[in-house]
């Protein structure tokens, strides 16, 4: 093995892993705090998964309905998360979001405007008021481009197409990270006392997903191998509306904005089935007739919202039920129709949906219904962090955005992910600065650790023969779809876990073509290690949770159980390399926050809480 001195080494105070919304926002913060900051990204700058976000970012600015305030947003978030959210994170998120959105405007973002020239806000599932600042249906692109164009002038170094292999530690504390350049396949050692993960989720472990190739749970894999914990991994959000046809685009996201702008869901009988799927908890705030739904859409403030805008878990399950009962659409989904609205309105409000269907499915959404069905979209769970600093239990390791857990609880509201990125990205940056200010000594990189991590990934290139990694990925996706899908059962989960154990052995023996230069096969071998950890953690948490709550549905344990609210599922990797799950008892909620979460809307609107 080569000497440490011969491996390229780059030094930073802070290394941010991931250049999506959370990563770039964290890097802007640490750069502005005077820290030497590096960002690594698997792709080119500006291509991260954030660009896929469509609908908007939730912030109680009250520009469209002045009754909105942070307390209502907080209450909506807790209710959406079925009260399993980390209370303080949900509160901080609702409080910080408006300021973080305005800040984007100062950095060049151009949101859609209200008639008086303010940032326009749209309706979305689970949000009581029009709350999502947006740019048509390409809000994620606006967010990432704004952060990118602002960020490159703040002093940070962006290392593109650089992939993390493993974290480096010195006496328990972070000392850096081993990574490699995609274009050459060469290794690089980052020496940094702080690493901030903004690595996103692991949707690629499923076949039908809205996620891109990057979403392989790299943060989950690397964090657990370094001793950090994962939390709430059973809560994987199936977005109710992904494309279902043609097969090659199955899973691609159809924004919730379609329903926010008046889109309706029907089955093959032409029935608006969501009216038959209103959960008790939301009944008082949901329209029970089409007429009332229409009045709400027309802006009647006394009317209640149509049931198509119930939370994502509810809508996804309802679509599944229709399909399973033989009332699905032609290709096994439901119909989503916005063609009753004016054609110019649809093209203006949902331009990329219009193009996406026109070009990929040859469907004109201004005249025809879309076919949609559930698609794996988002990890509510993730790396367990401190609610105030975003630091994990490994000193020096931070996490923000989708890869971290806590804000969303058992189910995420649409629009809360983009605001999550900018709120907690910034907070992770501040947390990193505080950690560095109090850090005594400087953790160093150990040669032996570097070598060990290098061997872990070069073996894939060097072995004589082995399995094609793409085949193993296919099998992993099949296992997850069959056993850890949108509705789950104890026996299936156990079987899934058993099969994942066997697959783990196969992952150890995959082989890549022996060129390290820009070799997607080798990348896939490396990604597989992290995907399998993410998949297993998800299955373990799902088996432990014997109830149905939010995005986690158990056929053998229907409905929410009291016990389910007392704990969060936490996973860690043992010394012997096994993933173990446990129930971590939840702390009592702060009294003031409890009071807000359980208040009536009248009390919150009148500011009486």
């Amino acid at each position, binding site marked *: 093995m080569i000497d440490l001195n011969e491996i390229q080494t780059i030094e930073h105070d802070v290394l941010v892993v991931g250049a999506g919304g959370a990563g770039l926002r964290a890097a802007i913060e640490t750069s502005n705090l005077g820290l030497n900051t590096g960002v690594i990204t698997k*792709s080119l700058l500006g291509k991260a998964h954030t660009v896929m976000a469509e609908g908007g970012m939730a912030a109680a600015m009250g520009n469209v309905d002045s009754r909105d305030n942070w307390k209502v947003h907080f209450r909506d978030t807790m209710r959406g998360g079925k009260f399993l959210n980390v209370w303080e994170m949900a509160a901080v998120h609702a409080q910080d979001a408006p300021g973080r959105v305005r800040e984007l405007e100062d950095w060049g973002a151009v949101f859609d405007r209200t008639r008086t020239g303010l940032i326009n806000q749209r309706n979305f599932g689970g949000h009581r008021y029009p709350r999502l600042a947006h*740019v048509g249906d390409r809000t*994620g692109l606006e967010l990432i481009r704004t952060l990118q164009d602002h960020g490159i002038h703040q002093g940070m170094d962006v290392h593109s197409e650089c992939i993390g292999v493993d974290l480096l530690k010195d006496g328990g504390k972070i000392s850096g990270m081993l990574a490699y350049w995609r274009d050459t396949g060469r290794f690089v050692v980052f020496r940094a006392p702080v690493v901030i993960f903004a690595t996103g989720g692991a949707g690629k472990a499923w076949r039908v997903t809205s996620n891109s190739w990057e979403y392989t749970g790299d943060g989950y894999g690397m964090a657990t191998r370094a001793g950090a914990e994962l939390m709430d991994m059973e809560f994987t959000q199936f977005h109710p509306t992904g494309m279902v046809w043609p097969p090659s685009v199955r899973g691609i996201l159809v924004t919730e904005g379609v329903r926010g702008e008046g889109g309706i869901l029907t089955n093959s009988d032409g029935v608006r089935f969501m009216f038959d799927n209103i959960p008790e908890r939301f009944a008082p705030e949901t329209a029970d007739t089409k007429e009332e739904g229409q009045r709400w859409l027309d802006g009647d403030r006394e009317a209640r919202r149509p049931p198509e805008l119930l939370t994502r878990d509810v809508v996804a399950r309802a679509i599944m039920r229709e399909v399973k009962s033989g009332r699905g659409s032609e290709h096994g989904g439901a119909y989503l129709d916005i063609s009753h609205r004016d054609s110019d309105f649809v093209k203006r409000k949902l331009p990329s949906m219009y193009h996406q269907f026109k*070009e990929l499915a040859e469907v004109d959404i201004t005249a025809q219904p879309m076919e949609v069905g559930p698609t794996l979209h988002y990890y509510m769970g993730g790396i367990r962090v401190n609610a105030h600093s975003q630091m994990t239990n490994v000193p020096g390791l931070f996490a923000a955005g989708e890869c971290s857990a806590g804000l969303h609880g058992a189910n995420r509201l649409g629009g809360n992910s983009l605001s999550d990125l900018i709120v907690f990205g910034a907070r992770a940056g501040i947390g990193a600065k505080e950690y560095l200010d109090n850090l005594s000594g400087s953790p160093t990189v150990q040669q032996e650790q570097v070598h060990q991590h290098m061997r872990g990934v070069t073996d894939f290139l060097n072995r004589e023969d082995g399995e*094609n990694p793409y085949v193993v990925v296919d099998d992993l996706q099949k296992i997850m779809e069959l056993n850890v899908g949108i509705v789950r059962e104890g026996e299936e989960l156990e079987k899934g876990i058993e099969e994942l154990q066997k697959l783990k052995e196969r992952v150890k023996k995959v082989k890549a073509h022996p060129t390290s*230069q*820009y070799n*997607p*096969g080798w990348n896939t071998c490396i990604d597989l290690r992290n995907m399998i950890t993410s998949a297993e953690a998800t299955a373990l948490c799902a088996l432990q949770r014997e109830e149905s709550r939010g995005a986690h549905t158990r056929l053998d344990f229907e409905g929410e159980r009291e016990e389910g609210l007392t704990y969060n599922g936490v996973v860690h990797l043992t010394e012997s390399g096994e993933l173990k799950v446990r129930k971590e008892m939840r702390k009592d909620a702060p009294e003031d926050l409890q009071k807000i979460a359980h208040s009536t809307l009248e009390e919150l609107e009148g500011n009486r809480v």
Partner: protein
Amino acid sequence: MSERTFRVWRGNQDGGEFVDYTVEVQPGMVVLDCIHEIQKEHASDLSCRWNCKAGKCGSCSMEINGKPALSCMTRMNTFEEGETVTLQPMKTFPVIRDLTCDVSWNYEQNKRIRPFAPRPRDPDGEHRMMQEDVDRVQEFRKCIECFLCQDTCHILRDRETEQNFAGPRFMVRLASLDMHPLDTDDRIQEVKDESGSGLCNITRCCTEACPEHIGITDNAIIPLKERVVDRFYDPLMWLMRKLRPGKKEVAKN
């Protein structure tokens, strides 16, 4: 379902050659799906960039039968029956490997553009802009940085001189700043000198290549060229400016 032959360029900066692959094409497939099939079935090391697979990220740019295009948005049923599909990396940029090329030059151009410089907020802490005043800027901000316009631009493609044309992508970016209602910076000198607006001779190839259908030539480049002409080549405008300085110049001073 039908079989289709792909002729794919394989190699790196030291050279390469076209290699033929056969793919079973299912209904609805796009070119990128076929590349993934080739990786799975024939060549796990075939290199190509992609991310969103929905025309939103601009990663999978390449030349398909000689034309710059996103492989995720090129449907297989747009080809003639039996037509061989040729895939090459974008020619304007140095190749890294197979279909992947080094586009870092574009990121350098972007960094040369001075950052957004907003006016102060209104006394109540808000920025006010009317929708009709931001429509044009929003058109420019639809850009997904696929760099197909850069690839097709013959000034960049030939690159025979030391000319400093930043390319259509960055003319669009400059236009989005210049027309941004909040921006106070005067960028016209920069448009002319640093970004070389005069070098574009309006052949509109970039506009045709844009997958986002941005009116690159008509809505961005021509208005910028006109502003440059007004500023530097029109004596009457020059005199007017001396007598009545514009808002941006006042803000700058």
